[in-house]
Structures are given as structure tokens and as C-alpha cells.
């Protein structure tokens, strides 16, 4: 082993022992060149390190190994990374988030390329819990977990993380942090859409879209398309962007959204034939955007919206009439839709098979039950907690030196 490598190894050992992580990270980052040049001896050094005690040294070596060509086929390396995630010292890796995140991103990429997405889910779950300070902190590897879950078609593990409201971010010094922030919300929106949790899906796409920006990102473009579709499915209308959306998004959104805009216009006519025609016309675009599934959901939602509209006009209606009015093929299909909607609580109605009529009812909820009361209590608790959080953040900004400096320089 060459002397400089020896020096590296012994410095890592000394600095780890004294707990001087700042200096250690500096050393590690400086030694990356040296390590890459001595690829053959890296394994020997690894042997001399302990997972817990010398996490930062191991991390640097793994980052170097992962950067080499053909690393994805190095099964031993993948195992090393997995063991590292399980055994590394959380305190140490928190001090080197940029290296840690980049290692995890490489690992995710390898699995994506190898089409072994499901294998990584369990390791990424661990990787996230290693570095986040508390549950509601977003890390830049959340997006990696979501990506693997989507590719593996296994969403439950991601939901555990997505369902938690985020109120802080574990920042690293890396240049691509915005990308992973946007990706998290984009993938999250996709996962919720797959599970037909439209509300939450819309919210996730909206966060991606309204992220303050000076330039437009492709992730935002795709999020905007899906945002339109989910809004159609959920609310039946073309969404207007919130006021705080960056102006560049509002300006450029028209350039790429015209097929989607046309779909929304057709939807607004409440005529399902019209919608089918638009879908037909732009099917190439929708397919190329991988949005055909959502587009088709729009048609289903139109039928439902039309049935819901009927409840505003009629008290009773025969199933045959209903099938005519919402352009369904038969009374049987109308009955199927109505029953499905009753089951999901989307309308309040009852079917009388004897005379073939549907009776529309008022919402039976009188808002006087214990259940409503408890819901109200929960909401109030959430609001109080939110207020508390805002207050704390506000306070942090108020004593931030940079902020104080800025308002002193520009008193207006």
C-alpha cells in the first residue's frame, strides 16, 4: 500500500477518534482523487475501517467506487452500500450529507438500470431515517425512495413517508438539491394519483409547480400536465394556478399545455362524446406523455360529475332516462355507476328496482354526531400545531443575521 494511502487511512482513524468531523470531511473530499487513482487498494483500506467508527472514511471510498464505470454491475459494491446504510453512524453521515446523498443517488440509479427497484426500498427507508432529524423533515433521498416504489409498483412503503406533512428540509451542499425537491413532489403526486387519492395528488403537483423559480424545469412541465388532469378528475375544471406561482410558469405554461387545455374545454361541455373525440385526436401526445391512464380517468369522472349534476335538478329519475342523459349505454350501466357512487359516498340516492327509479336524497349528515365533533377537534389540533410551527419559523427568520442585514440595507 502506498504511503499516501496509509496516511489517509491513519488520518481518518485519528480524526474519527477525536470526533473532529469537519476536518475529517475536508480531508475526505481532498483525498477523492488519490483514492480513485488507487482503485485496486481500496478494498484493503475498507477492511481496516469499522462501519460505526469510521463511517466517513468508508463513505468517501464508496462514493469513489460508485463513480467508476461499470460500478452498477459490481454486485459486491451494492452489498457494501447496503451494509453501510444499515451500519453507518448516523451522527457522522449527517455531517457529510452531500457525499451521503450522492452515494444513495448512485445506488438508486444502479437499481433502476438493473431493474431491481424493489430490492432497494427497504434500504432507502433505512437511509432516510438515518439522516433526518425528525419525521417531518424532507431529505433529498425521499425522491429516490418514491422513484423505486413507482418502478416496483409497490406504493405502501412510500406512503409512510408521503403521508407526513413536511416542514423542514435537510439541506446539503450539493448543486442539484432543487431537482430532488421537485422530484419528491412530482413522484408523490404520481403515487397518490395511482391510488386515486386525488386530493393529495393535486396538492403534491401544486407544490412542485409553485416552487419559486427563475427558470422552468422539465419536472414542472410534466407536473403541470398531470396537475391539469387531476384537477379535471377531482373538480371537473381547468385549474387556475395560485397567485404565488412564479411568473415564468404562468407565462410558459400555455406553450406546452394546449392538448390538455382542449381536453378541459371539451370536459366543460359535459358531453362525453366531445371528450372522447379530443382524447382520440391527441392520443399520440397523451401516450407520449405517459398520461393516457389519467386521461381515461377523466372520462369516468365526467360520467360521475354528470350524474352528480342530475341530483341538483331532479328528485327522482328513471334509470333509463339517466342512461340517456349521461350517455351511458343502458339502464344497467347507469345502475352500476349509481351504486358505485353510493358506495363511495359521492352521491346520496337509493335505487328502486321495482319501478326502475332512482331517488336522490339530501346529505344525511346533520353535522350533529360525535364523529363530526371529533373531526372538528382533530382539525383544530392540526391548526394549533400549524400556528405553533409558523410562529417558530417566523421567529427564526427574525433573528437570522442575513435577513437583518438585508432589511438594514434596504429600509424600504
Amino acid at each position: 500500500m502506498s504511503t499516501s494511502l496509509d496516511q489517509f487511512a491513519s488520518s481518518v482513524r485519528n480524526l474519527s477518534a477525536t470526533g473532529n468531523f469537519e476536518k475529517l470531511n475536508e480531508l475526505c473530499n481532498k483525498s477523492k482523487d488519490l483514492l480513485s487513482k488507487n482503485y485496486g487498494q481500496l478494498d484493503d483500506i475498507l477492511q481496516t475501517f469499522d462501519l460505526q467508527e469510521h463511517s466517513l472514511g468508508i463513505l468517501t471510498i464508496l462514493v469513489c467506487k460508485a463513480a467508476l464505470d461499470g460500478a452498477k454491475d459490481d454486485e459486491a459494491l451494492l452489498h457494501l452500500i447496503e451494509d453501510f446504510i444499515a451500519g453507518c453512524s448516523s451522527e457522522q453521515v449527517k455531517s457529510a450529507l452531500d457525499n451521503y446523498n450522492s452515494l444513495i443517488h448512485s445506488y438508486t440509479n444502479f437499481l433502476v438500470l438493473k431493474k431491481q427497484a424493489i430490492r432497494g426500498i427497504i434500504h432507502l427507508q433505512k437511509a432516510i431515517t438515518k439522516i433526518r432529524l425528525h419525521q417531518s423533515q424532507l431529505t433529498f433521498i425521499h425522491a429516490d425512495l418514491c422513484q423505486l416504489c413507482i418502478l416496483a409498483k409497490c406504493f405502501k412503503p412510500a406512503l409512510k413517508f408521503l403521508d407526513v406533512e413536511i416542514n423542514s428540509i435537510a439541506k446539503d451542499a450539493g448543486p442539484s438539491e432543487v431537482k430532488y425537491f421537485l422530484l419528491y413532489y412530482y413522484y408523490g403526486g404520481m403515487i397518490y394519483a395511482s391510488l386515486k387519492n386525488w386530493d393529495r395528488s393535486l396538492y403534491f403537483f401544486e407544490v412542485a409547480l409553485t416552487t419559486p423559480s427563475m427558470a422552468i424545469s422539465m419536472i414542472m412541465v410534466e407536473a403541470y400536465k398531470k396537475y391539469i388532469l387531476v384537477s379535471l378528475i377531482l373538480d371537473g375544471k381547468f385549474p387556475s394556478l395560485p397567485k404565488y406561482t412564479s411568473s415564468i410558469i404562468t407565462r410558459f405554461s400555455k406553450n406546452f399545455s394546449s392538448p390538455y387545455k382542449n381536453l378541459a374545454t371539451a370536459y366543460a361541455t359535459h358531453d362525453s362524446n366531445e371528450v372522447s373525440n379530443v382524447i382520440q385526436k391527441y392520443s399520440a401526445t397523451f401516450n407520449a406523455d405517459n398520461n393516457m391512464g389519467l386521461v381515461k380517468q377523466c372520462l369516468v369522472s365526467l360520467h360521475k360529475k354528470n350524474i352528480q349534476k342530475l341530483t341538483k335538478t331532479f328528485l327522482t329519475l328513471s334509470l333509463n332516462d339517466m342512461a340517456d342523459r349521461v350517455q351511458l349505454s343502458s339502464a344497467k350501466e347507469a345502475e352500476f355507476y349509481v351504486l358505485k357512487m353510493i358506495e363511495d359516498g359521492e352521491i346520496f340516492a337509493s335505487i328502486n328496482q321495482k319501478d326502475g327509479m332512482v331517488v336522490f336524497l339530501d346529505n344525511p349528515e346533520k353535522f350533529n354526531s360525535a364523529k363530526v365533533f371529533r373531526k372538528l377537534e382533530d382539525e383544530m389540533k392540526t391548526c394549533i400545531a400549524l400556528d405553533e410551527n409558523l410562529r417558530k419559523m417566523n421567529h427564526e427568520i427574525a433573528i437570522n443575521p442575513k435577513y437583518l442585514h438585508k432589511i438594514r440595507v434596504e429600509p424600504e
Partner: protein
Amino acid sequence: MADVSMTCDLKFDVVMEELEQKELETKDIEAADYENLLAIYLANNDTFNAKFLWKRIPQTIKDSSDSLKAIWDIGKSLIQGDYAAIYSQIDSKTWPSHLTSIMSHLRKEQQSRIIHLISKGYTAISLSDAMQMTGCTTEEEIIKLGESAGWKIDAPFGFIISKKVLHDEENVFSSNQEQLEKLTDYVSFLENHY
């Protein structure tokens, strides 16, 4: 493979979590595990997770297991709302021993879900439709079932279902002590901040 033949309703959730974990660990998961998990999802009426599980099961395992395909056929009927088909799909097959208890559980769950739905969504339903949707094979059976659900027989047509006032099942308020504590919290919040 997890042994589920002896478990009762509540334990299905535990088994489900075990199987989900096992799948993520990607070690020695076999066709029987997938069969159990898929059937449990269906018993919970969790068609989304069932659908995605089916999509991610490796093709080789799908090809090797007839039961798996048969379970997914039930899932398809469930998604399409073809309730009548579900019961015959369950009854017409002899399931391997690890599936028997889940399958009878699935049948029971499906039936009680449908009875609830009929009570909620119909004021009158024909005897034949009610029989199909609940998977009853004889008129006596459906009449007994209907009566136990509180439906009135309207021969020869079927059942008349009067709308009951829906009972709020958890209509119990928390204790006074707790209530008082919560109110104190609200007031102190409002007073301190606004």
C-alpha cells in the same frame, strides 16, 4: 411460508404486514406468499394494492401458480363490480390448504359488504339480483339473510328496504374531564396568541 390456516380475522392484518415485509426483503418469497397476500388485499377490499401486487409479481411465478391466477380473476370481478361472479369463482375451486381460511374470510367479508351496500343503496331490489349479489344459491337462504338485515319481503318481486336512521356507531363523547382539558387548551391558545 407464513402459516395462516389457523388464524382468525384480526390476524390477517398481521400476516399481511409480515408478507409485505418479506417481499421487500426479496429473499425466498414463494408463490404461496403472493397468493396469501393477494387474497388478503381482496378480503380487505383493497383493490388498488391488489392490482399493483398482481402487476409486480414475477411472470415465472404467475405462470407456475394456478391459484394465483384464480385469485386475480376474483380481483378482476371485484374491480369491475361483477359481484355475482365472485362467489362462484370462490366456490368452484378447491383451494390449497393455506388459502382455505382466507378464501372463506374473503367470501364472508364480500357478502357483508354487499348486504351493507344494498341496505344503503336500494329501496327495492329483486329477489334474483339480491341472490346474485350475495352469492346465495337458494331462495330460503336469501330470505333468511335479508330478514336478518332487516329487509321486508315483497313476494314475488323481492325485498323492500326501508331506510333506517343510520346509527352513529361511535356516538360516545369523551369523558367530561377530557373535554374540559381540551377546552382549556383552546382558550389558552386563543388568549395567548390573539
